[in-house]
């Protein structure tokens, strides 16, 4: 298939950026979106032009580094799929594809399509872990966990930190990311002792960087792991408990 790309090019954080148009002939529909960009880059390099910078690592949908806006949709048109797992058969011969980096004030553009997602690390540092050293993995079933909770925690833990939720949100809010990171700990017994301290710290760190949720639900459908906005409701409820309840009793929740 033959495509035309419009790609955002920007030399650095404070440089002026603009869309550049590239022809992408002879693309196989079996290529992933990133392989298609590789092909375009090889041709650019052969012509001694600057290749398009884009972030990637695992190319199997688990590292979270590859997200870009494709035709105005985070990670492109296929639901529940990261850019690296998006295949060119989702497009048609002759398509014009616009590729733009994530836009949020907190994510500086490093180069072209690469943005600095380190504000997400600040949120994790605020409490997205369990501080007690737990030693080696305990025997299975040493701590009984209801199946429903284990499943819900696993669903939240599927978050790969790609920031598509924030990029897709009309308000640039960080609620889905933060609530997923909270839920995968707070739904399990090991997460309980620090549950309310955690929600308070992570929410308040999130608010230093991102917008505020108005429940559009755009994050959920942009998420390559289809993480549910149910997690956001849980976060909101825990946040109120953290603020208003007697912490001595809230710990027993």
């Amino acid at each position, binding site marked *: 298939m033959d495509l035309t790309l*419009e790609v*955002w090019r920007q030399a650095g954080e404070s440089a002026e*950026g603009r*869309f550049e148009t590239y022809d992408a002939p002879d693309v196989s529909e079996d290529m992933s979106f990133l392989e298609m960009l590789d092909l375009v880059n090889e041709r650019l390099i052969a012509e001694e032009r600057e290749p398009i910078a884009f972030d990637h690592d695992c190319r199997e949908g688990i590292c979270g580094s590859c997200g870009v*806006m494709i*035709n*105005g*949709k985070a990670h492109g048109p296929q*639901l529940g799929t990261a850019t690296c797992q998006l295949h060119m058969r989702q497009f048609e011969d002759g398509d014009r594809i*616009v590729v*733009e980096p994530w*836009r*949020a*004030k*907190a994510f500086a553009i490093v180069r072209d399509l690469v943005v600095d997602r380190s504000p997400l690390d600040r949120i994790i540092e605020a409490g997205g872990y369990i501080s007690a050293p737990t030693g080696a993995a305990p025997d299975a079933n040493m701590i009984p966990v209801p199946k429903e909770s284990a499943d819900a925690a696993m669903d939240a833990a599927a978050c790969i930190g790609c920031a598509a939720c924030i990029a*897709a949100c*009309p*308000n*640039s*809010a960080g609620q889905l990311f933060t609530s997923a990171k909270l839920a995968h700990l707070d739904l399990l017994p090991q997460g309980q002792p620090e549950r309310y301290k955690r929600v308070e710290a992570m*929410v*308040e760190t999130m*608010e230093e*960087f*991102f*917008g*505020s*949720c*108005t*429940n*559009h*639900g*755009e994050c*959920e*459908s*942009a998420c390559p792991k289809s993480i549910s*906005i*149910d997690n*956001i*409701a*849980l*976060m*909101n*409820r*825990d*946040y*109120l408990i953290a*603020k*208003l309840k007697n912490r001595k009793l809230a710990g027993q929740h």
Partner: protein
Amino acid sequence: MEIYRTDVGKKYAMAISGVMLLGFVVFHMIGNLHVFQGAAQINTYGEGLRDLGEPLFPRTLVLWAFLRVPLAAAFAVHIHAAYTLGYTNLKARGTHYQSPRDYLVANYASRTMRWSGTIVLLFLAWHLADLTWGIKTVNSEFARGDIYNNLVFTFSRWPVVVLYLAAQIALAFHIRHGAWSLFQSIGANNPRFNKFRRTFANTFTAIIVIGFMAVPLGTVFGIIH
């Protein structure tokens, strides 16, 4: 309140004030329907609101202390939170997307909350001047206590009918998203009930808007005259 300083706390405030406003629109809509029982009924109802709480409390005290002041406060909180959060969200994007967005689920209602809210607010100012305060430039035939004839006069002017109907459409958009959104904001989420939240918001919106529109339409079609 310390919690109001945070964005999540402001959303709680919006949801709680939003519930108060929803409560107001329900009772206001039901009250309005007395007009279909005739002039005596609606006029007595209007007086009755002022008599609420008598003889235990002085006349109009309950109206002011439990209805008007809390409602005005709910409006103030709701709007303050709406505008401060709106500003936060505007700043949080920085550079806007330079290519058109293609939204998957964010709908017209959810993306226009601040505009539908503003229209409702502007309408409210007109509405109070028209039928509560009876400002002469707005409603020249206003007579305090004669709710029925005030309504008949105001809806004898077609631009006013259009204005009232348009405001109801804005309100419909606003509460269709709001009456769903508030559950998320206050963390009321349970797989067992979640599917009813959308139905609740839609049904609620339909009842409110049809109920409100009945009065101007009833006048236009001569049922109220």
